């Protein structure tokens, strides 16, 4: 099923244009009309890629690939160079299962577990997802399995109200897996289509917290053996190279089926995902572009890559 086709590229661009213009202009100056790919240009492209958090190695690889592609092309003008790099970047993002759709309807309830480190936007993303599923006519139940952070339950409660969906929660400090369990039981009993489980932020290097995640997963599978259908890892676009370790470690305890990249309404580009996707072949599902309920968009490789250069 296709949700969130409300792509609003302006929002992505608003933030970007403010910092990007300078670099892109300087490239155009160097290159407009001139058919050369000199080191200076490549350095500038390197700077754009690295300052987008793409990382040293991945940037080097992409530039090498682009150079090979360019080698046979005669018309080496600005747009060609940037387009070649863009093509490279897009090809990284287009992993095999990117067009895989959630098999909602085939499974009932369809269970989505949302995980990630602290403060990346898990709860907000759940609020936005709940809203989108709800307006698509599905019956949604959210489970407040972050029982740790102060007022996490209240926060999700407010989102549930905004999205007009139901919520299962227990008092602060109770066992998160018991909340997940109760949520799935309730969903099964009362015919919910979608279950969204919010979890506490956990740093991936804390083994006890990572174990807790396994347990949350396991108890849900006791009621619906296929649960969770999807596990979404939320990444903050502001995060740098550490996101690679986050993806590695979360993947070890629970199979990650998709990424959500939040806070793309700022000036950060979230370029670290290229390395993650390249390595793990996990597609980006959604992007967060604000704090409002409709600030969640379907992921579109081309727009994401354009935003890195913002020369449209």
């Amino acid at each position, binding site marked *: 099923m296709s949700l969130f086709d409300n792509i609003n590229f302006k929002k992505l661009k608003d933030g970007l244009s403010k910092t990007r213009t300078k670099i892109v202009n300087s490239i155009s100056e160097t290159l407009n009309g001139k058919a050369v790919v000199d080191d200076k240009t490549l350095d500038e492209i390197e700077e754009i890629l690295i300052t987008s958090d793409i990382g040293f190695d991945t940037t080097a690889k992409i530039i090498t690939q682009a150079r090979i592609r360019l080698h046979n092309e005669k018309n080496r003008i600005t747009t060609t160079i940037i387009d070649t790099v863009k093509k490279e970047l897009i090809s990284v993002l287009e992993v095999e299962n990117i067009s895989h759709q959630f098999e909602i309807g085939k499974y009932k309830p369809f269970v989505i577990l949302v995980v990630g480190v602290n403060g990346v936007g898990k709860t907000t993303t759940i609020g936005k997802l709940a809203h989108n599923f709800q307006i698509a006519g599905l019956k949604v139940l959210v489970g407040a399995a972050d029982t740790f952070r102060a007022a996490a339950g209240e926060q999700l409660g407010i989102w549930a109200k905004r999205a007009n969906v139901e919520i299962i929660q227990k008092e602060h400090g109770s066992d998160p897996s018991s909340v997940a369990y109760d949520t799935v039981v309730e969903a099964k009993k009362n015919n919910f289509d979608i279950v969204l489980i919010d979890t506490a932020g956990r740093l991936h290097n804390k083994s006890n917290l990572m174990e807790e995640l396994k347990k949350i997963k396991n108890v849900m599978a006791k009621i619906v053996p296929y649960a969770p259908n999807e596990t979404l890892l939320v990444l*903050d676009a502001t995060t740098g190279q550490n996101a690679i370790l986050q993806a590695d470690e979360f993947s070890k305890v629970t199979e990650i089926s998709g990424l959500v990249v939040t806070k793309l309404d700022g000036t950060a580009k979230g370029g670290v995902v290229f390395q993650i996707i390249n390595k793990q072949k996990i597609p980006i599902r959604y992007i967060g572009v604000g704090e409002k309920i409709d600030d969640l968009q379907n992921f579109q490789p081309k727009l994401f890559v354009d935003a890195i250069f913002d020369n449209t």
Partner: protein
Amino acid sequence: MFEDLSLKLDKALKKITGQGKLTEKNISDTLREIRRVLLDADVNYKVAKEFIENVSQKALGKEVIASISPGQLITKIIYDELIELLGSSTSDLKINAQGATSYLIVGLQGSGKTTFCGKLAKRLTESGSKVLLVAADVYRPAAVEQLKTLGGQISVEVFALEEKNARKTVEDSLSFAREKSFNTIIIDTAGRLHVDETMMDEVADIKKFVNPSETLFVVDAMTGQDAVNSAKIFNERVNYDGIVLTKLDGDARGGAALSIRQVVGKPIKFISNGEKLDALDKFYPDRLASRILGKGDVISLVEKAQSTFDEKESGKLEERFRMNQFDFEDFLKQIKAIKKMGSLSSLLGMIPGLGNQLKNATIDDRALIKVEAIINSMTIDERQSPKVLNGNRRKRIARGSGTSIQDVNRLIKQFNEMKLMMSRLSKGGLGKSLGNFKFN
């Protein structure tokens, strides 16, 4: 058995041996490697570039002590500069002698502001202040509840209004604090993006109104390249006094802190390293510098190398070379010094650039052990005047060291060649003696 080793050792040691002075050429590999290390640690592209350029310009022409390589020396210099740049570890907060002291806490969404407010309130309460927390985040769902919960945990009162108006909340909180004689006010604000004009206006306005004793900018240690943008704009708008670096209990390298220091020059006052309210610490620049450069491998190598071969000692040895007095005793000392730095293979593995090169080359540390065993089986007399080593003595040494007579002969022959050569060089690095020494 020495054959394979000799080549590799030769090559490797040439790299790590003293080469007189730091030149652009002999540090370029290391600088490239360090640049990569910094970028992997999320130091901003431009900041990394400028930082390395500045440091290397300063360092060019510096004498390299014999026992370490130019690469090691520049790494050490960079490490020291990094500490310098990251600033001191004093995290003193301004406290007004008269009237109330107020702190304004600002930053991006989810960086850890509210949690930090709780931590600071706890700390100041424990040191005797009467603290009021102010919930001026009127946007994030349940932000007020969150602060109230934290306040409850430490029995600190939280001021909030029903009305969703940050400026008014702050205004009212100040009069409330005056009435109830709170002497310390901590204002928690909403997370905001630096490009959100309306929200930046709001916080600038609050800052102007409150004129706080300190404004602190809270930054997530996981932040990437964009840290410079947000830090700069926040600084332009609220001119903060210090930085709080959060989530250091994770495994992020924290290079953003360096970027921010470089761009805005404000001190890092606290680090936050956990979700619990007592997880607040002083900032230690050396720890962060090691963290940024990665696990401290490079640093510990440089430091080991420096402490092992101190300059005086190497000077003495060079003098002995010059006077043609170098003997097996000196040679043994050298081998022991190398061993003190760890095994030869792990030593080489620690050097940036070299590790990769030697990935498939297994250095046989046993070769050195064998040489050492042979020398150990010599008498003091024999070590000091190798001339006395006749056939019988050599046989005895071979037996004593569990090696063959050929091994002993080879060692003596090469020792003599090396000695001859070294005495010819008016000035030679210590390491060179080993570098030119063939074990086959």
